[in-house]
């Protein structure tokens, strides 16, 4: 493993090329090169494209801010507790309580920051759950066809037709979820259906493609075909919808915490919103900051995620990429068409 370690530490491009020319390289080195190339193609290049557009750059920065708040912020900013300071300190008056304090004297910034980790876990769990279920159901139904397809689509259609928020409220009452992972999964228990349906219709066209047919003729097993030939083609779409279902989790969780139908064990922006809504803040412009702090917190991360998903769309959309190369780059970036069609679904969703 020595040579690999060397490569890892210096990581120079010259060395890499040497290795590629070297015909007697070992297996492990070979694999390392593959990893590097994979990283270049699937991580570095897309990131650079994302970064080149100021809007998706803003999206990345915003989302990273929340991640930082959730990871580092909770260490720096002390956990809020009632009467830690005077009541109703206005925002931007002191460095200690930057966003002010609420009706019980809790630091609002602390409340926002300490609600972030469970929110991030919730978002990730929900988005992963709905995306994975949708990908499995959509590809299997579309590729297998027949009875399997019919059964899966009946389940999917029922899931689409059932009033999602009401289902979530009922499920939350039954399960009384405490861990943010479980809350996230319950919140997206119906979200997968719409995505599964659209993935299925894309698989229907994909399965007729000649290279998929070639794999089939060669006798490759169905799971392998789905994994290697079908799924990679759907990745862009799946990724965009991953971000959108993340937003969906935020929307629903804050809304349901606000209504008070989720257990109050987790500190949540929706809980703070509910408390401010039932306080004098709603009657006075002076105190309205208490209402607007959680409001802005929710809207900001949602905005960041939309910008990010629009950015993903720009990376993957071949039409936009082609246009990019034709008009020769950065000048036209500001005028990129946004495919809003993917976001329409989710915004009209609930």
């Amino acid at each position, binding site marked *: 493993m020595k040579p690999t370690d060397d490569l890892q530490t210096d990581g120079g491009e010259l060395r890499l090329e040497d290795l590629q020319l070297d015909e007697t390289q070992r297996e492990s080195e070979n694999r390392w090169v593959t990893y590097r190339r994979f990283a270049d193609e699937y991580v570095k290049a897309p990131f650079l494209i994302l970064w080149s557009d100021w809007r998706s750059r803003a999206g990345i920065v915003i989302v990273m801010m929340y991640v930082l708040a959730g990871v580092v912020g909770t260490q720096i900013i002390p956990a809020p507790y009632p009467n830690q300071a005077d009541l109703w300190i206005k925002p931007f008056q002191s460095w200690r309580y930057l966003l002010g304090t609420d009706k019980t004297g809790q630091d609002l910034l602390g409340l926002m920051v300490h609600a972030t980790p469970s929110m991030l876990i919730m978002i990730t769990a929900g988005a992963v759950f709905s995306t994975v279920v949708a990908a499995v159901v959509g590809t299997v139904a579309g590729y297998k066809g*027949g009875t399997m397809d019919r059964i899966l689509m009946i389940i999917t*259609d029922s899931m689409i037709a059932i009033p999602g928020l009401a289902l979530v409220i009922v499920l939350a*009452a039954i399960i009384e979820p405490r861990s943010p992972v479980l809350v996230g999964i319950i919140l997206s228990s119906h979200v997968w259906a719409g995505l599964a349906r659209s993935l299925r219709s894309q698989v229907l066209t994909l*399965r007729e493609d000649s290279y998929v047919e070639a794999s089939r003729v060669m006798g490759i097993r169905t799971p392998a075909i789905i994994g290697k030939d079908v799924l990679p083609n759907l990745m862009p779409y799946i990724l965009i919808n991953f971000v959108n279902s993340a937003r969906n989790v935020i929307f629903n969780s804050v809304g349901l915490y606000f209504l008070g*139908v989720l257990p109050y064990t987790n500190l949540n922006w929706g809980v703070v919103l509910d408390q401010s809504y039932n306080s004098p803040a709603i009657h006075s412009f002076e105190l309205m900051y208490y209402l*607007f702090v959680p409001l802005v917190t929710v809207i900001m991360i949602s*905005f960041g995620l939309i910008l990010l998903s629009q950015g993903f769309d720009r990376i993957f959309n071949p039409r936009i990429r082609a246009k990019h190369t034709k008009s020769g780059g950065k000048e036209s970036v500001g005028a990129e068409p*946004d495919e*809003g069609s993917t976001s329409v679904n989710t*915004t009209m969703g609930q």
Partner: protein
Amino acid sequence: MSKNYYLKRIGMVFVTIYLVTTFTFVLIRYMPGGPMDYMVAQLIQQGLPEARARQIASTYLKVNPDQPIHVAYVDYMSGILVGDLGISTWYDRPVLEIIISALPWTVFVMTVSLILSFAFGIALGAWMAYREGSRFDSVATIVTTFLTSVPYYLAAIALLAVFSFRLGWFPTGGRYNPDMAAGMTPEFFRSVLYHGILPIASFTLTAFGGWALGMRGNSIQVLGEDYLRVARLAGIPERDIVIKYVTPNAILPLYTNLMIAIGFIFGGSIILEQIFNYPGLGYYLFKSIETRDYPLMMGGFIVITIAVAISIFIADMTYSLIDPQAEAGDSRETY
């Protein structure tokens, strides 16, 4: 498409509704507590001793809590077939009556906001696409993206806080002025509109951006098509090109979304009607979950499910009529 396909598709709608009804029926029995417990808790809060509260509740409630679930299920399903949705345990009125009185209000708010947001979004999106790359386009894209990222209920809270509680320009809730007799008078309509403005605004403001962005993307795609180049070369006036070719083709992909949205908005009314204290379908559905009012809860679930299933059915059926290129999703087993 064959007649057989239509029949199958209609069959699917019924299967969907049946499955959801059964699923919901079983699911809500697993909720902790029941209509009985909720009412007893309420009565105890009013100062009654527990035994007395239990006694009152059991005479008041017309449900049989000891009925086994499969008997209750058969009872309920046969009731539905003759249009009997049972009697609400909390309101002590037939569920059908409550739903019929609530439904028009939800439909009113949701339809108006859907039409407004769709029409405004389409117009703005087309205009943005036409001026692609201009300053107007960039600013409008950012503004619409931002508005899309606002959850509708947050818009509702903000509007309510500023315009109702603080400025007092609009009522904080209700469907119309309770001192006014409901009727076909212009005053009544004005009152309904006045009470409906904020709910409608919170949905419209946060929804039109999504339509605008979708329309913009589609229009730009259509504007780049070869046949438009041909049309221009043939000397067809620009106005005709936009109205006759670009707009219809760009709206087409949004059509399915619109149909699905019609169904979805019923579900979205749960939070909104709660915030505005607006007794529509969502308001009663939420109330029924809170009070464990099984019959009313089932009624709400079923009505919304039927609305969504039919909307999607109509979308599927009409889409292939509008767009001849669309294929009906076939599910023949080949592999």
